[in-house]
């Protein structure tokens, strides 16, 4: 058992691109679910729209990377408007149904054979981030004591954490304002808010768009981190991991998604590496009769599911939340 290596891998996951992407996606969900009470189960769809918006603009249409960024954001905004227009006047569950379906539609469409020339089918798109790597200030690997980052990773790491910090700052500034107060009130009771003269539909739409743009930016980060993009980056479980991250950190708290993402990826990676090592080698710690190597990589997800259930039962407010203030209450 190589504990140094387990720790190194876990910390890399907890501070690296995994955590950055999920923190950003969960910041978006926090605006949707944590503050406004909108059940968006299609955050992966927003990420796909953003990521593919960026990649396809450069690779397929040959435009500049710097034009592709606003186009990706615009795509996320349009996606939010399309989803919101028919559903935001209805009860909350309809948004959930529509978003989860729309996210799957996006994933299947970009992966389809007939649209291969635009979105690259199952292989996805590559070679769109030359402009991004061209301005990389790091020329050699960066040593962060426990782990080292190659120049490109260090650049994504820097840009990623700066974007997460800016997103948190924006959410903080908005949620302390009267605008944020309207969102929180809508989460509590939208009829009451309507009876006080606020245009609830418009506020829900603004929240859906804002959180969707954060989702789109998370999609950018996926694309930049891998220097490639494919449909499997945006499967449904991405959304549910992002929810786990949000609930773990504490919904309706500015830093909840960030702390949640760090803890989630540390634990997932720790469990994954532990079980992989415990089942590897000629004389494994855990007998193959109980668990073999291929099963080991899945146990972490069983643990994540169990963790989410226990979390909702025993600490629905997450790490940061105030129990009296939390929308989730399983008991």
């Amino acid at each position, binding site marked *: 058992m190589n504990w140094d290596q387990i720790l190194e891998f876990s910390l890399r996951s907890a501070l690296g691109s995994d955590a950055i992407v999920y923190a950003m996606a969960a910041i978006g969900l926090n605006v949707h679910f944590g503050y406004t009470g909108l059940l968006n189960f299609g955050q992966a769809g927003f990420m796909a729209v953003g990521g593919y918006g960026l990649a396809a603009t450069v690779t397929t249409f040959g435009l500049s990377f710097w034009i592709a960024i606003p186009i990706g954001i615009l795509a996320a905004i349009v996606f939010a408007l399309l989803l919101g227009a028919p559903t935001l006047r209805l009860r909350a569950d309809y948004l959930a149904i529509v978003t989860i379906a729309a996210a799957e539609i996006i994933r299947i469409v970009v992966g389809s054979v007939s649209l291969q020339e635009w979105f690259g089918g199952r292989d996805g798109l590559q070679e769109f981030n030359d402009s991004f790597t061209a301005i990389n200030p790091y020329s050699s690997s960066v040593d962060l004591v426990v782990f080292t980052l190659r120049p490109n990773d260090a650049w994504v790491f820097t840009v990623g954490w700066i974007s997460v910090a800016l997103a948190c700052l924006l959410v903080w500034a908005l949620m302390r304002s009267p605008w944020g107060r309207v969102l929180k009130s809508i989460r509590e009771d939208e009829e009451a808010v309507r*009876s*006080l003269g606020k245009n609830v539909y418009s506020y829900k739409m603004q929240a859906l768009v804002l959180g969707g743009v954060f989702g789109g930016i998370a999609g950018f980060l996926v694309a930049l981190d891998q220097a490639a993009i494919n449909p499997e980056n945006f499967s449904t479980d991405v959304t549910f991991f992002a929810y786990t991250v949000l609930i773990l950190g504490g919904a309706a708290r500015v830093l909840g998604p960030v702390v949640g993402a760090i803890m989630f990826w540390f634990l997932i990676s720790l469990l994954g590496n532990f079980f992989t090592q415990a089942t590897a080698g000629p004389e494994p710690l855990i007998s193959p009769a109980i668990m073999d190597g291929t099963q080991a990589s899945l146990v972490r997800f069983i643990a994540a599911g169990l963790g989410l259930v226990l979390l909702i039962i025993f600490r629905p407010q997450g790490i940061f939340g105030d129990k009296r203030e939390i929308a989730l209450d399983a008991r």
Partner: protein
Amino acid sequence: MPADTTDTTDTTDTTDSTDSTVGTAKAAAALSDVAREPGATKPDAILVADGIRRQFGGLTAVDVGHLEVQRGVITALIGPNGAGKTTFFNLLTGFDRPDAGSWTFNGRSLDGIAAYKVARLGMVRTFQLTKVLSKLTVIENMRLAATGQRGESFLSALLPMRWRGQERANTERADSLLGRFTLDAKREDFAGSLSGGQRKLLEMARALMVEPELVMLDEPMAGVNPALKQSLLGHVKTLRDEGRTVLFVEHDMDMVRDISDWVVVMAQGQIVAEGPPDNVMANQVVIDAYLGAHHDSDISVEAEEQRLAAERNRGADQKETPR
């Protein structure tokens, strides 16, 4: 009108209660010439409804021929369960759409106007089951209700200097209202931790933050203990004495008798009677609506047949009169 009722709970109301007898007298004078019949024309109507009908499948929940609500008085809307009072409220405030009919507020048609715009026009309602925002503090509940807040637009929200001053002014107004409704001690508590009666108070105070001309209260006394009831009564009278118009739905007859200047009775979706409280409560149609037309007669097959025949004739008569 007993002036001592407001004094028992609210010592600051001693002056108000004399005011409120004046207000009651004034309201009575304004309504003295109004006919005691359904759909009566009022000298200064703030709200006028015409031919409002709402059907749920085969059931006609509301079918109001004509109703006028006098400005500056307290009008009670009463009727047995299922009479369509709350549905009528929902229709008037834009929370539901009627199948037919038109209605105006201050002369302006409200047909097809969204609920939030109706509130901005100065017609604010409360709910039968209180809708406080549980996970916001009491003061935040109050601040939310202020209208025309600059900080409620996305871009201005990011510039605190655009909304700080307004927020301070709103908070001051909210604090004085909380003081008046004796909720100042609960200022920083989550609204969800308040008792049922306190929630009613908060909802009323919050509605006042919108500065409405017409306050529509849906069962303000439901589930409120007798002591708090007295102070709520005082508050409703104060609303009128400030020059606002109050329209409220209520089951509690003592309260209706005590504070209302005018009573409108609904039964089976229609308005069956109108008039000052004492007059209405002695009205045979109203007693029939509440207790059934034959609540004190024997039930036998022959009597039942006679009753049904009589009912059919009477029902036909009644349908004609309100129109």
